[in-house]
């Protein structure tokens, strides 16, 4: 198989043996790592894997591969870093077509030269590839106004498990011809096909972009303040709710905080920065500051890094989806549960959409305490009608806590899709929802 892979993509683009060590996942080493240079080579590798029934793990920047059940076997790691070209960018159309191995940072830098950006801001733009972001449905604070991958991806090319290139959607912002395949592949975690090209819709870079940081004594007050912002005329681009643990992890004081982004034309941004002060002053706000430039960027970056790989003492991360109005109370309960189990926690949330990230800290945190906390969190969140997924945890924890919730009845449709698109079960098998 190794020889065949070398003949398909060229000797220098195949790693074997000890060279594969940077690609070990959950303690399992891949049998080979290949870096195809074109979508045709991706197709050839997949056709070979299908024929030999070897599992394939698509790999972009390697930032979100820990999400999912541990793989039982890592066969071929399919690295996409060589597919990193911008194929088309027509500013007048506000669209770009790119290969998916490009990092988000590199893409934004290029688009920025022409006054545009892809309105996605997940953490780790320097390493995360567009393909990984799409496959993992990664998002950041600005989803509050600009939506997520599903709203921005308008067309794609994927290589199927059988090695053919399939296109879905198109290059125009409005398109209902055929089924919306881009939606299917967003968040599919590499289980249905390998994303090789994407067409995305873009936005103009705003004239002004500021961040207002507001502090509160209590999370409950900060939660009410977030509700007040949502119920006001303000149109923030981001609305982040942070508990005391998250503030401490960022080196900031206070019992709770809001980070609110405003962007647009100067008059809009200035009016909003002033108005939010007026709105929140009677709601328990103890201090606020408007940040711009490097200070603003640094604050957003540190928020994103809070629960990432870079923070070495993160013991586990869980992601919740609940109703926005439930957030503050559930975050308080979550912090209490962690404390009861002897763990430090940091909870942050996209307050307008109801997505929370709950991180547990402590290098020496015992697996029992982590397992207990995650399990209790899930019980509470599921009990409130929400969903909870373990985004990051050591293998010893994942063996005891399911990464995903117990799936609902719709899982049968998901399984039927998987069976039809990947009949041999070679694409990231066994890691996704419902054992897909």
């Amino acid at each position, binding site marked *: 198989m190794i020889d065949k892979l070398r003949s398909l993509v060229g000797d220098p683009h195949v790693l074997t043996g000890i060279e594969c060590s940077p690609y070990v996942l959950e303690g399992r080493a891949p049998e080979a790592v290949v870096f195809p240079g074109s979508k045709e080579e991706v197709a050839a590798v997949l056709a070979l894997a299908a024929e030999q029934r070897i599992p394939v793990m698509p790999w972009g920047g390697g930032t979100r591969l820990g999400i999912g059940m541990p793989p039982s076997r890592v066969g071929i790691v399919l690295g996409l870093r060589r597919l990193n070209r911008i194929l088309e960018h027509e*500013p*007048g*159309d*506000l669209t770009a077509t790119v290969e998916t191995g490009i990092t988000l940072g590199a893409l934004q830098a290029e688009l920025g030269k022409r006054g545009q950006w892809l309105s996605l801001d997940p953490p780790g733009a320097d390493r995360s590839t567009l393909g990984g972001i799409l496959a993992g449905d990664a*998002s950041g604070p600005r989803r509050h106004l600009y*939506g*997520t991958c599903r*709203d921005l991806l308008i067309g794609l090319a994927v290589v*199927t498990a059988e090695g053919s*290139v*399939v*296109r*879905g959607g*198109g*290059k*125009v*912002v*409005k*398109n*209902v*011809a*055929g*089924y*919306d395949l881009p*939606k*299917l592949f*967003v968040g599919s975690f590499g289980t249905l096909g390998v994303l090789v090209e994407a067409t995305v819709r873009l*936005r*103009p870079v*705003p004239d002004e972009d500021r961040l207002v940081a507001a502090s509160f004594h209590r999370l409950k007050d900060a939660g009410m303040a977030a509700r007040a912002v*949502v119920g006001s005329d303000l*149109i923030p681009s981001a609305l982040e709710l942070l508990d005391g643990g998250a503030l401490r992890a960022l080196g900031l004081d206070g019992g709770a905080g809001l980070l609110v982004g405003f962007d*647009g*034309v100067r008059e*809009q941004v200035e*009016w909003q920065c002033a108005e939010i002060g007026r709105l929140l002053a009677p709601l328990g706000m103890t201090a606020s500051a408007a940040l711009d430039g490097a200070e603003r960027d640094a604050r957003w970056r540190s928020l994103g890094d809070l629960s990432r790989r870079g923070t070495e003492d993160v013991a586990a991360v869980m*992601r919740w989806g*609940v*109703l*926005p*109005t439930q957030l503050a109370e559930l975050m308080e309960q979550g912090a209490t549960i962690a404390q009861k189990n002897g763990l430090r926690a940091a909870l942050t949330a996209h307050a307008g*959409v*109801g*997505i929370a990230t709950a991180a547990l800290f402590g290098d020496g945190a015992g697996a029992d305490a982590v397992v207990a906390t995650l399990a209790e969190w899930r019980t509470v969140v599921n009990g409130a*009608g929400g*969903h909870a*997924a373990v985004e990051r945890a050591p293998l010893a924890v994942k063996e005891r806590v399911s990464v*995903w919730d117990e*799936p*609902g*009845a*719709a899982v049968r*449709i998901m399984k*039927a*899709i998987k*069976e*039809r*698109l990947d009949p041999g079960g070679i694409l990231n098998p066994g890691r*996704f*929802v419902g054992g897909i």
Partner: protein
Amino acid sequence: MEALLGRGAVLSDPDELLVYESDGLTLFRALADFVVFPTSAEHVSALVKLARREGIPFVARGAGTGLSGGCLPAEGGLVISLMRMNRVLEVDYENQVAVVEPGLVNLHLSWAVGPRGFYYAPDPSSQQACTIGGNIANNSGGPHTLKYGVTTNHVLGLEVVMPDGELLWLGGKTRDPQGYDLVGLFVGSEGTFGIATKIAVRILRKPQAVKTVLAVFGCVEAASEAVSGIIGRGLIPAAMEMIDQLTIEAVEDAFGCGYPRDAAAALLIELDGLAAGMEAQVERVIQACRDCGAREVRAARDEAERQLLWKGRKSAFGAFGRVSPAYMVMDGVIPRTKLPYVLGRVNEIARAHGLRVGNVFHAGDGNLHPNILYDPRKPGEEARVVAAGGEILKVCAEVGGSISGEHGIGLEKMDYMPLIFSEADLACMHRVKDAFNPEGLCNPGKIFPNNKACVEVGPAYRQHPIEERGLAQRF
């Protein structure tokens, strides 16, 4: 079925079925064996199970305003009308979610939440009649999708009767549900994946300020360039609509909305959002239009004038009735920078077929609506319209566009799918369909190129029985 639904909820008399033989595209007709009117998801589930047991096809139908024949019973069988399931079930203002039944008229949702300062953003031109369920099937758009997105960007969850009759939820009221995005797949699947019986949608707060600008141009090319010019200045208006001269004349004849009759093209540009900074943005838009040679640019002075301008735009399709007995509306999409070229080609194609075309469309999205005018009573004219329409779609495909922006493929455009999708692309879509609808009884004969459908295509004109008896005459 009568035992299940009660008398009066099942139609089988051919005269009554005739009402349901078409949608808004009267070129295609197919007669159902029954039309039924359930009032609950349980009814729909029972009907689907019954149809499946009998092996007869079924298709859901809303208001019938579709424009691609998507809700026609192409292979006969059961038409399941959802018009009696039209309630707003729940509105959660704090979380900005409403749960509605599929037969609810689009505009009625905005009416229901309007008093609290909210609205439902997707606004197809037929929003006074079309239903949310139909919008789900077609992933409907509208003028304001430029800024706010189309139906799929506003749907969070769906209760669905699957093609085997099982009732289940896809997604829900919370974001980012785990697993594949089945909601995203279902929206726009044109009724081939099942029947939505409850729909959770986002509702938005009404913007603080709205400004509408009318820009009048001496040629279509200049108006097209203004569209890109506005985007190039870093602005994303809520809507950017273009109306050409033939359409302006029809609209003015019918409604007198204040568009200059001698203009080659007019752009209706709407900005919304905060009051702060609105004037500065309006100025930028006006300047962009002037730079592209607009001969007149003005902002609507008040709400009455704004409504009048929009009335002209939204009533344009109806106004064509003034200038032609029939028209066929096309729905191609192109990259907006290709507008001048493609509009030129559309006119050439129409001329070559001896036809007139009126353009009224979502210029900001590049979503064209050439309306080819014709007289169905003139032999051969309809065939020329169909031929011209095919050529226009080919041009859209050639410039990297799509054959449908919001009307769907349905029966009308299934044979054009290969213009933009390869065999492998279509095969992949087929597999996805098979996962939802393995027996193929749910809205068969649509979307994919096929020749099995028993659909009547041709002049919609037929003599009424009283004409046949010589008791009346059309003129």
